[in-house]
């Protein structure tokens, strides 16, 4: 008897639909985890995605996201100290994109809104 494949036709079809939808996969807010802040960005057409913010002097390259298991989804975990951290995503090395969803937004002064992730201090 042939072993059952882990990728069923239904799963495959679902993955194809998600891939075709591209940016329509629900975005996620940055999440504070014990390892750091997990940034997630969804863009099926992007060749590269990075996160730039107040924590890395708005570097467009230092914090590149990696493709995750879900098609079109990019992730990175960045250790950040307690405080407010402004950020945006950099798509394809040149295009700054406001996070589709964030805990807060703040005007960057240049006509665009930065997302803000808040890392709270450990409760005393």
């Amino acid at each position, binding site marked *: 008897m042939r072993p059952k494949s882990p990728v069923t036709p239904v799963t495959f079809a679902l993955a194809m639909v998600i891939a075709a939808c591209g940016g329509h996969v629900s975005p996620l807010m940055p999440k504070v985890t014990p390892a750091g802040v997990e940034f997630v960005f969804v863009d099926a057409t992007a060749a590269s995605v990075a996160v730039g913010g107040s924590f890395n002097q708005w570097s*467009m390259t230092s914090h590149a996201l990696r493709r995750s298991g879900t098609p079109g989804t990019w992730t990175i975990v960045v250790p950040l100290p307690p405080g407010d951290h402004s950020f945006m995503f950099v798509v394809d090395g040149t295009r700054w994109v406001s996070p589709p969803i964030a805990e807060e937004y703040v005007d960057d002064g240049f006509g665009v809104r930065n997302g803000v992730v808040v890392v*709270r201090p450990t409760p005393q």
Partner: protein
Amino acid sequence: MGSASGMESLLSGRHHSSGRALLLACVVAMTMGAEGLAAAQAVAPSEREALIQLQTSRGGRAQDVDVLIRVAEEAAAKGLPSAPVVNKIREGIAKGVPPARINPVVQQLVEHLQTADGIVREGQVPAAGAERAAAVTLLAEALGAGVTPAEVRDLRRQAQPSGQPPMPAEAVASAARGLGFIKDARLPVSDGSAVIAEAARRGFRGSDLLDLGREIKRRERDYQSGRVTLRGLREAIARGDRPERLFPDRRTNDERPVGRPDVPTGTTDRPVRPETPQRPESPERPQPDRPQPPRR
């Protein structure tokens, strides 16, 4: 810069007597003072190079960056924290904003830092070093969010418990930033100040004061509609309710808020609407004067 180069020659070992060199170094350091040292280090040469390289890689001119760096150095010379100024310059250049548009933004930031610095100096609790820089930066953020100096002073007066030591600068700055969130929610400043001041008097930590403002902003529709009131919230704080009881569904590091929150103690007998995360009003605003590379 003469003092700095003198220091450099001392460190390079050109002086034969190490004892005399050390003495000279001490004299130079004392002459320059902490502010002078801060000014000399406002923008490190490597940082300046990085900014210029970033600007020229985008087709800009190096001298335009010098104008911006001068703003940061002038701020540092006044004893203001220059890190947020340099960070804003870097942000603007990285995003491809023309230096002519970055300049007024950093100038305004310096103005806020200067005003914040004045308010911190008025406080009776001396703050120095990183602690002072953090307080000044946070207070400048509050001013940038629309809190006026008069409102900060009034808040500090209200928040000061009678017979207790004066509020530290960090607490004043956090309280002001918390008020900034409430102003952003277009709620009455007097009521917002009363809530924040009550919390400060009750010993809420700086981060709790910030979160208090954030949580009120998250529920701005409930407060605006009268479903819950700032007066009720202040009374709950005055009774001794802590943040975790005031907002059982408040945001924490460990989890995202889920489900329906409980009724905040003493504020209303009606449930608060479940929170929804924020979305930008316009995720990608058109920026006609910035070069937009073609999308793949």
